[in-house]
């Protein structure tokens, strides 16, 4: 799949394999963005968070909705072609809402991971189920919420469930048949390197899910995936060690699932600082990089040929780490650990950012990320493991002083880690960011606005009140030369274009 050759289409979750969420479309630009108007709205009629990034291929839009809905629409008019809803069993165990973030596509099939931890293929023309395989026993706390990633003829998915003491993994299935080709456990088993980073038997229930879509470097045939928290999220006792490969960046061979290298962002995490942010591939001069603004508050620049850290700078308020180790990695500070009665730590449990996508703009060469300025009171307490039951080791609470509490879209310079500009949101948001060759970045806020900003200056050029908080990352496409921008909010998918 070469997304660069067909900018009118949005072929995968992040637009292309680099994860940049950048489009070369430029009909809508800084001069005319103020004239954007709604083109159509599609309603799923479902409640809960609507997190999809739809795909568009040759005029047809494919999206997913709450409760494992999927749909195909005429991307010009919003009129449905087909709709699918999975009959979900009553005892599924999603942690944070009955959400799904989107599909992957190859030929005449779209692929979806489900809340009852199946992977399914639907016919692009009819929505009929072509194959349906169960990946793992969902009653133990496993589920899929991410958009799969297609590489060659394989469908890659990572599992959710870091709240349940699962053992995380990334799977690859044959796109034609659904046959499982490989599984990479994100927690090494006995005898494998890394298993010694877990105390006793804790590796069996150590979490480390992989619930955000990876990226792919065809040149070196490497796919990059990120992982989430070790379980239980708020308690380190009983799992002494670094807890590999939780909160890590993994470089895998997509044909075999073999690990090439790893980089761990937060060792022995006790704050739920999932590293599940899209690992963005950027080439700068001769350097081949991965950029990641991590939930733990640091912006990491990593050499993607070998996993070596180049730089880590904070881009939001941080109190969990005070120092860096010899390799430049921030390390947890004693004062920042959760306590029985609770301890104020920044960033809060939702992180300095979260799963919502950042974007890298090829023109400005800036990295734009949704920052959440918020601290929480983290507590910890012993908790026995009980399969399929929530396994947190206590919880977090909002910080009573209520400060800081705001959001910001931040433009970061990857060369320095410095903030070039920011657009402040009244409260932290769950919206991702899109950049376009029109000199624009698009993002949303918790107050319901979808906003177009000047990519160079951060000035807001246009906004639209969607009527519900935005919990999704926007995308763009074109039909017959006319550009559209789409974003999910509430139970509606909104599209905008020029009059």
């Amino acid at each position: 799949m070469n997304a660069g050759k067909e900018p009118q289409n949005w072929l995968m979750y992040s637009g292309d394999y680099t994860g940049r969420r950048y489009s070369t479309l430029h009909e809508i630009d800084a001069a005319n963005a103020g004239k954007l108007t709604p083109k159509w709205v599609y309603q799923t009629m479902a409640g809960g968070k609507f997190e999809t990034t739809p795909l568009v291929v040759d005029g047809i839009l494919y999206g997913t909705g709450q409760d494992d809905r999927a749909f195909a629409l005429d991307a010009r008019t919003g009129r449905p072609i087909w709709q699918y809803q999975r009959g979900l069993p009553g005892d599924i165990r999603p942690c944070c809402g009955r959400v799904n973030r989107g599909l992957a596509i190859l030929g005449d099939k779209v692929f979806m991971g489900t809340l009852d931890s199946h992977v399914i293929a639907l016919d692009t023309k009819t929505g009929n189920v072509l194959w349906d395989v169960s990946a793992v026993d969902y009653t133990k706390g496993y589920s899929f919420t991410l958009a799969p990633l297609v590489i060659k003829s394989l469908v890659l998915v990572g599992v959710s469930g870091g709240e349940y003491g699962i053992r995380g993994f990334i799977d690859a299935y044959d796109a034609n048949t659904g046959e499982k080709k490989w599984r990479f456990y994100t927690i090494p088993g006995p005898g494998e390197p890394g298993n010694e980073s877990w105390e006793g038997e804790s590796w069996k229930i150590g979490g480390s899910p992989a619930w955000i879509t990876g990226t792919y470097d065809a040149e070196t045939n490497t796919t990059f995936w990120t992982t989430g928290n070790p379980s239980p999220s708020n308690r380190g006792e009983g799992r002494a060690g670094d807890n590999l490969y939780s909160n890590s960046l993994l470089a895998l061979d997509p044909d075999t699932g073999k690990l090439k290298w790893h980089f761990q962002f937060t060792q022995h995490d006790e704050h739920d600082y999932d590293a599940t942010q899209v690992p963005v591939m950027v080439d700068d001069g001769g350097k081949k990089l991965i950029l990641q603004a991590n939930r733990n508050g640091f912006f990491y620049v990593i050499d993607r040929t070998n996993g070596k850290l180049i730089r880590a700078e904070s881009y939001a308020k941080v109190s969990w780490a005070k120092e860096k180790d010899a390799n430049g990695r921030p390390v947890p500070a004693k004062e920042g650990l959760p306590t029985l009665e609770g301890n104020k730590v920044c960033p809060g449990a939702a992180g300095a950012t979260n799963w919502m996508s950042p974007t890298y703009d090829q023109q400005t060469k800036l990295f734009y990320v949704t920052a959440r300025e918020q601290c929480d009171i983290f507590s910890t307490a012993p908790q026995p493991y009980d399969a399929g039951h929530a396994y947190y080791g206590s919880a977090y609470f909002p910080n009573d002083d209520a400060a800081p509490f705001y959001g910001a879209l931040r433009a970061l310079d990857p060369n320095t880690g410095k903030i070039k500009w920011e657009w402040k949101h009244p409260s932290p948001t769950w919206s991702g960011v899109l950049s376009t060759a029109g000199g624009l970045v698009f993002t949303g806020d918790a107050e319901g606005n979808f906003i177009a900003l000047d990519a160079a200056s951060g000035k807001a050029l246009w906004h639209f009140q969607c009527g519900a908080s935005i919990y999704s990352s926007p995308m763009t496409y074109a039909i017959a030369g006319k550009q559209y921008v789409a974003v999910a909010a509430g139970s509606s998918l909104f599209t905008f274009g020029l009059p």
Partner: protein
Amino acid sequence: MNVRPRIFFGFDFAVVILVCLVTASSGAAQAKNPYAGDAKVAKLGEFEFRANCAFCHGLGARGGGRGPDLTRTPKKHGDSDADIFNTINNGVPGTAMPPNGATQQGVGMTEEELWQVVTYIRSVEKKASTVSGDANHGRELYYGSAACGTCHMFKGKGGRLGPDLTGAGTARSTEYLTESLRKPSRRLAQGIIEAMKEFTEEYETVNVVTNDGTKYQGTLLNEDSFTIQFMDMREQVHSFDKASLKSLQKSRESLMPAYDEKVLPDKDLQDVLAFLVGGGQGGVK
């Protein structure tokens, strides 16, 4: 885990009612707690409580900024074990108290886990009510010399600038209420004791000067990046585009005057609390 909504909180509730029906499928529980008085089970319930409830009800169930003190008895929404089970499973419609599984923080609890939590709540309850004031006198103060009623509704009577206090006596701990009176700016009300909105806004103070020089002061109703809605001191609701204003200042200095011991001696304070906690009962003759 990934989510804690603030704005549009209520939006997520509609769906998740589905979830709770399936997690603890019996809408109405069996009448008896199978674990009543079992200390080990209470401990298991504490784990669940920390993960799912302490977020609002505080550690030890002693009450937090968003939920009432649960160590108090009797419970407002029914005091039998089965009542408490049902309150937890179904939530309290129209308030921030979510149905089982809808907090977005924890996950839905099974029937067994619900009983564990009930057992835990029982284990931390304190029998005696701590408020001993004269509710009748409290009512007189409320609508009279203390003038609470000019800014606060109570059972449909009173002002609108501050939160409706009908539910405050049961939703808030007496410590919290005392602090609200003595030091109103210490922690601003978050609007959770009122009928649940789809968003929560704190009662921040707003000072606005419009382009023609008109000045307004009031409490914030809502705002986004581009607009602001507030109620002025005369209870008029305004909405402005921020860009159109000459100046806009928000502050965390409450519009409620601090009632120190000179203005409201301890004895009177106890009487006002007795009025609020008693749900106005004592005052209605």
